[in-house]
């Protein structure tokens, strides 16, 4: 095999992970259905008053997205770890961070993107206005990659541990709080009539910071876990 460029490697890993995910469609669907069910349960829990539902809609959608993204974190590295692919990946000449970034992107396409697409439909259940829905989509689009990235660090740290799933949530959820605040804040700002720009800008800033640091930290965590 001739030497791959960095971009080629990235797209190769992404394509591979996507193919693997498409082979096991049930896993992807489980996350999505979980998201839909959690969001739908809230009105049943708090009662059907439209005013209240409209008010809590952004928060509910965001918390559900957060929980749903936790659900699929365990799968991010574990399959590759078990069949030895991960060890091979650590031996490639290109940096492990780049590979990790590709895996994170693939994970986001499989578990984050469906949530973003599904969210407006759920927003309609809560009677959100069209403008609020657009902001919700924008905020989710900026926010869910951050969730995948922070989650990747947690997944790498807990690789191959017993009770890993619950542990990942314990580690990752506190770190996701800023994303939750700004994501839900953006939608609430639009609903209450002010501009969502500052919230979205802060989310974007968080995304960039996460983009720079998390692949590197995840690679470090993977090396610790694998040695």
């Amino acid at each position: 095999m001739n030497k791959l460029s960095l971009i080629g490697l990235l797209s190769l890993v992404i394509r591979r992970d996507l193919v693997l995910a498409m082979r096991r469609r049930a896993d992807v669907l489980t996350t999505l259905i979980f998201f839909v069910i959690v969001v739908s349960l809230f009105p049943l829990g708090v009662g059907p008053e439209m005013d209240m539902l409209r008010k809590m809609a952004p928060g509910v959608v965001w918390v559900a997205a957060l929980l749903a993204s936790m659900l699929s974190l365990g799968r991010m590295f574990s399959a590759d770890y078990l069949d030895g692919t991960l060890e091979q990946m650590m031996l490639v000449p290109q940096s492990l961070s780049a590979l990790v970034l590709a895996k994170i992107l693939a994970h986001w396409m499989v578990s984050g993107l469906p949530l973003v697409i599904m969210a407006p439909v759920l927003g309609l259940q809560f009677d959100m206005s069209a403008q609020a829905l657009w902001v919700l989509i924008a905020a989710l689009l900026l926010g869910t990659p951050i969730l995948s990235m922070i989650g990747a660090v947690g997944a790498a740290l807990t690789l191959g541990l017993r009770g890993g799933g619950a542990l990942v949530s314990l580690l990752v959820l506190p770190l996701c709080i800023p994303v939750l605040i700004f994501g839900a804040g953006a939608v609430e700002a639009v609903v209450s009539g002010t501009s969502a720009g500052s919230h979205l800008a802060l989310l974007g800033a968080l995304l960039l910071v996460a983009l720079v640091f998390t692949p590197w930290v995840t690679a470090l965590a993977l090396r610790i876990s694998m040695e």
Partner: protein
Amino acid sequence: MVPWFSWSAAILFVVGLYVSFFVAPTDSQQSEAYRIMFIHVPASILSMFIYLVMAGYAALGLIFNTRLSSMMASALAPTGALLAFLSLWTGALWGKPMWGAWWVWDARLTSELILLFLYLGFIALHASIDDPRRADRASALLAIIGSVNVPIIYFSVQWWNTLHQGATVKFTGTSMHVAMQQGMYTMLLAVWLYAIAVSLLRVRCIILERECKAQWVSELVEVRR
């Protein structure tokens, strides 16, 4: 070192409690309830400070591969978690008579709660990895990530809750009575020394557990006996 720290901590506790309950005057606005401050403020300050020290030790352990600093980090974590819990508990008991609520979603309280979660995550991660070296390094990484995140969380929560005003602004340094200051500093020092003593004692246990095969351990007086 341990007896030295623990005895001075005990003496300072007694002095500090005496000053805070008998010398410090009754506050004009908060009556006697402000006396919770003497345990609440030291606990909060130290819970944050211990996290920083822990992350520092963890970073040292991760970068220079020194075993002792990793052990120190894992010995500090339970003390820090307990102090964070204590600060939340006393804060709730202080908030109830003063603000009329056990809990307010304000930036300081929320970040203290998240700090407790971070401590618990550190302890849980450390406990669930069997290989001590991997446990040290993985949880060190987590502690560093957490310490980077704490400021972000603090500012985002503060920004989220713009209600943050009057109620939480505690006594400013100047308006505080001298005896109150003395009482608080004594208690701060006492809790500080206590934390040092307990963590040293704990790190001793950890060292003995890890190095139980080493020659020098079996030559210790306590073991020989």
